[in-house]
Structures are given as C-alpha cells and as structure tokens.
C-alpha cells in the first residue's frame, strides 16, 4: 500500500472538514448551556429536555414519521412493480419513453414537482394534509426505488423464476417465493432511500402540506426564520445520530454477509477439491 504523502493528507483533511465541520459545530452547540447560539457557556443537555416538552416539535416529528413510513412503503411497492416491467417486459411500444420517464423526476427541480402537485390537488379539490404529502412523496421517491431495484433485477438469473414455474408455482407465487426473497436487499435499500428522502424533504412538503399537517423539516425551517434556537440544534443532532446509526449498521451487516458468503464458498471449493 502507498504511504500517505503530505498532499494526500491535506486533501483528505480539507475534504472531510468541508463535509463535516458544519455538522460538528451544530452538534457541539446543541450541548451549549447558553441560550445564545454563538456564545459558549459550558456543557449542558437541558435543550434535549426542553425539546421533549415542545409539543409542536413532537407533533411535527410524528407527522414526518407517518408520512415517511407510508410514502416509502407505497413508493417501494410501485417502484418495484415499475422496475419489474421495465426490466422484464421485452419490447413494447413506448418502452424507451417509459424508462426515460421513470428517471425524469430524478432530475426535475423539486420546486416544479411541488408546484405541479399543488396545482393538481387544488384542481381536484383535495384537502391538503398528511394524505397529500404522502402522495407527493410517493410520487418522487418511487423513481428512486425503481432505479435501485431495476439495477438488481438486471443481474437476476431469470431461470430461477422459470425453475419456480416449472416446479408448480403460479407466476405470482414464483415472484413471492423466489424473486422477492432474492432481490429483498435491493428492495429494502430502496425503501430506506425513499424513507430518507421523505424525511428530509422540505420543498415538496411545503407545497403540498396544509395547515393541518406540518412535517419536521417545515417546522425547523419556519423556526429558524425566527432565529436559531439551541433546541433546533438538539433536534438536528438527534436526527444526525439516527441516520449515522442506520448507515453504519447497514454497511456493517452488508460487509459481514459478504465475508460469510466468501468463506462458505471457499470451504465448499476446498471440500470438493
């Protein structure tokens, strides 16, 4: 392995500082005893306590969680179905158009997505609230899911599904018993991606949320406009730690599984040879 030169070390430090310094500062100030955000007055966890007393924040967190779970589940179902059709179905008229269209929301500015959904809901006369946010989040998260799932399906050996049919499965039970368990990791990561996207979305949510439903990002954004409070820092720190635990846990589990698979294969090869 190459030694680290001074240049590499500097690039690495600067790169990581650029990415993480703002978050580190946020985390540090969440433990600030002072009410003034920029003045350090000793260590304290009181803002975390106050956060738990703040009913408005707790309500927003609950709405966000509901929206996240519902939207990402819906998006996973629809996205997986879309991926199946786009990968499996051979040529049909408009196939290229469809596969192009599934990717379009990835590059569409969120403002446009949000605005168009708002206009749709108004023209249909739908009352805006939790339900409309769920629909909106499903719409934009679904294409991310379908991208993740279809990249797995491309490498899926289709003879596995044929084998299931051959052994007496109906097409649906072949999917349920063979395809789904095998592509499950991709479906789960699609769900997690959709959940994360829904969790931190501000733009689309603010277009489609009504007075009755406020998500956490909307709440934080409007609170910050009145001035940054240490409570917000504490809230953000909690969110960062949840995400960090999730990401580290997933990557560790994936690595473990890969290592175990490799070990088993080597053992089988040795036993045969």
């Amino acid at each position, binding site marked *: 392995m190459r030694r680290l030169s001074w240049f590499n070390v500097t690039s690495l430090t600067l790169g990581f500082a650029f990415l993480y310094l703002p978050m580190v500062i946020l985390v540090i100030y969440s433990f600030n005893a002072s009410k003034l955000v920029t003045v350090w007055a000793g260590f304290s966890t009181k803002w975390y306590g106050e956060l738990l007393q703040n009913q408005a924040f707790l309500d927003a967190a609950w709405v966000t969680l509901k929206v996240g779970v519902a939207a990402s589940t819906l998006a996973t179902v629809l996205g997986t179905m879309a991926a199946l059709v786009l990968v499996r179905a051979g040529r049909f008229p408009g196939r290229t158009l469809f596969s192009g269209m599934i990717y379009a929301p990835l590059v569409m500015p969120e403002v446009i997505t949000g605005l168009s959904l708002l206009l749709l809901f108004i023209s249909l006369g739908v009352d805006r609230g939790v339900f409309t946010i769920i629909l909106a989040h499903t719409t934009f998260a679904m294409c991310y899911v379908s991208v993740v799932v279809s990249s797995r399906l491309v490498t899926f050996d289709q003879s596995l599904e*044929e084998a299931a049919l051959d*052994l007496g*499965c109906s097409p649906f039970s072949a999917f349920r018993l063979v395809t789904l368990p*095998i592509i499950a990791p991709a479906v789960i990561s699609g769900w997690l991606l959709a959940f994360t996207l829904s969790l931190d979305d501000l733009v689309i949510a603010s277009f489609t949320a009504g007075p009755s439903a406020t998500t956490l990002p909307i709440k934080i954004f409007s609170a910050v406009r009145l001035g940054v409070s240490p409570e917000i820092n504490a809230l953000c720190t909690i969110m960062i730690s949840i995400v960090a635990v999730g990401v580290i846990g997933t990557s560790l589990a994936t690595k473990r599984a890969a290592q175990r698979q490799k070990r*088993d294969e080597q053992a089988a090869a040795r*036993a045969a040879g």
Partner: protein
Amino acid sequence: MAVPVFAPWDDPTQKPLIQFKGVTKRFGDFTAIDNQTLDIYTREFFALLGPSGCGKTTMMRMLAGFEQPTEGQILIGGKDMKGVPPNEREVNMMFQSYALFPHLSVWENIAFGLRRMNQSKDVLEARVEEMLRLTRLTKFAKRKPHQISGGQRQRVALARSLARAPKLLLLDEPLGALDKKLREETQFELMDIQEKTGTTFVIVTHDQEEAMTVASRIAVMDEGRVIQVATPSNIYEAPNSVYVADFIGDVNIIEGAAKRAGDGYDITWAEGVAPLHTRKEEGELIAIPDGGKAYLAIRPEKVAIHTEKPQGMTNAVQGRIIDVAYLGNLSTYHVRLANGTMVRAQTANTRRLALRPFTWEDEVWLSWTDTAAILLAE
C-alpha cells in the same frame, strides 16, 4: 437369459409419450424450428444433439411450456399442450445453470416442488429424504447452494427436478459445468437414476460423446431441423448424411462419381486409379444415378494400414504419412493420397512403441473392406 431389447420406436403398437406434429417456432424473422415432426416414447433417454443455435434448446423449452409453437402441435401423453402453462405440466426441467434457489437450503430446494402439491407433511418429508438418498446428498441437506461444490449442486438440481416424479424430465446441458472426469462419472449416474425411476429423459447437449453414452436414441439437429433420429450405434454406423457422419466422431469423406456395379457401387474418385467399391451386408444401398455425385464416409478405425500393397483388397489406396497423433491407447495416422485427399487411419497400440513399423514420411497402403464405407448422397 436374453434381455428384451428396448426399442418402442420399432413397435407400431406403442403410443409415443411426446409427439411433435409439424411444429414451427419463429422468433421474429428467425425460424428456430422448421416444421418438425418427432415422436419420443415412454422410458426413453432421448438426446437432442447439435451445435449451438441449432434449435435444440427451443425444442426443450417448448416441452417445458416456456415457449409456445408458432405453428403445429405438441402432444404429451396424447394431450395437446397448447396454452398449458409450465406449472400445470407433468414435466420438470433441470436447468443448465442449475437455477438453485440461493436463499433456500438443499432440503428446501428439493421440497420446493413438493410443497406445491398439497401433500401431507410426512409424505413430503419421506420423498425429500428419498431424493437425498438417491443423489447421495443426505449429509448436505442443511447447506445452502453456495456452501456445496459444483458436482453437488448438479445433483441437487437433479433431485429437485425429479422430486415431483414427472412423466418427463428435461435436462438442459446438465453436465456442461463439470470437469471431464466428474462428467463421465455423472453420465453413468444419470443413466442409473433414469433406469431406477423409470422416468422419460430428454437431454439437450452439444457433446456427441455424452449423447452416445447416455441416450437410447439421438436426434441430430442442424439449423432448426432434425437431420436423423436413430440409436447411437445406427447414428455412428449408418449416418444418413455427411453432416451427421461428420458431427458424430471422426470420419474420412471421399467424394466421387457413383456407378452401379454388381451388388453395389463403384466410386471413381481420382484419375488413373482403380475405383473404390462399396456394398452393404444386408439391405439396399441408397439409389444414386450412374455418374451421380456420391460420398464415401469411412471411420478411421475401419481403415487398415500396411507397408506393402495388400493382396485381394478392392479398396486399397497409396499415400504418405504426414502426421502421427499418438493418444496412448490409439494412434491416428494422417495419410495424404496422391490427389491430395487426407485420410485418417486409426490403430490400437497393442505393441510397445519401438516395435511399430510406421512413422512420418513413410509410403504406406490403406485398405478397407467393401462394407466398411457408408455411401451417402448428400
């Protein structure tokens, strides 16, 4: 005690298990199978043999129900299979990639098909155990497919496809992924299992040795058509075309003009040398008009090699040894005749190396009997 010969295809009272009736399969403009008619009988070990792209896999996938014929009919056990999906056919398939379910153990893989049959738990478990014993996998029942070797995976695939006791088992290049030695062992295992279970096997392969070893009958295919269907020995000894003769084993082809002579034909094949004579021990040779183009197909092991001109042989030609391929048990001599035709002669090495009389650049005579060559028109 004489064992009755298994030959239902010669018995007009036997009803075939599988009938292809004028089956054509097109993929867009490409014709994969061209107006095919073929009968396969119960308990047969039937091989579809041909180079890749000849349509043999398409034939098999139509039997399994993954493809529907564009025209014609396929009958299994007398029933038209049109529109019957794979899961409702009493046919199982062993896939070339094995297609074992990676998330299930060996035991669960074998039980997979049985679970779709609404059997009681005891019956199911007994059947899985029986299959594990048949394929000698009992020790590996709890392992996942990635925890066993290639040969074991092949046996799991076989056990899984046999578990439902299908009327017909399809095997798609079942031994392609195994090394030579394991492949040969497995061929005999397959034949053994086929006999024990009494299932009809249809195997797809491009390996002619494999087809010869395992099959009761072979269909040699080329470009969507079956060229010849016959037992391995008939395919080898009585091919119906140069294509089949050339595809199965080694063969020398001598081209010439035929002329009726006595009980056979004289073949004029070169200027200034005596014509070759060919006849059949029994039955009639194919009819070729006088002066018509004919081919003689002679297997290298039926060509004898001499230092002097052999006496009393009609079919004797002179040439020079260009190459000797020493295979241990056999040697193949590549001999160039006066007109440039290459003929291979094969001899068993019954003597030690130093005692053999032929080597490179020797002038030799080659001969074969009147009945050794096969006369072909195309």
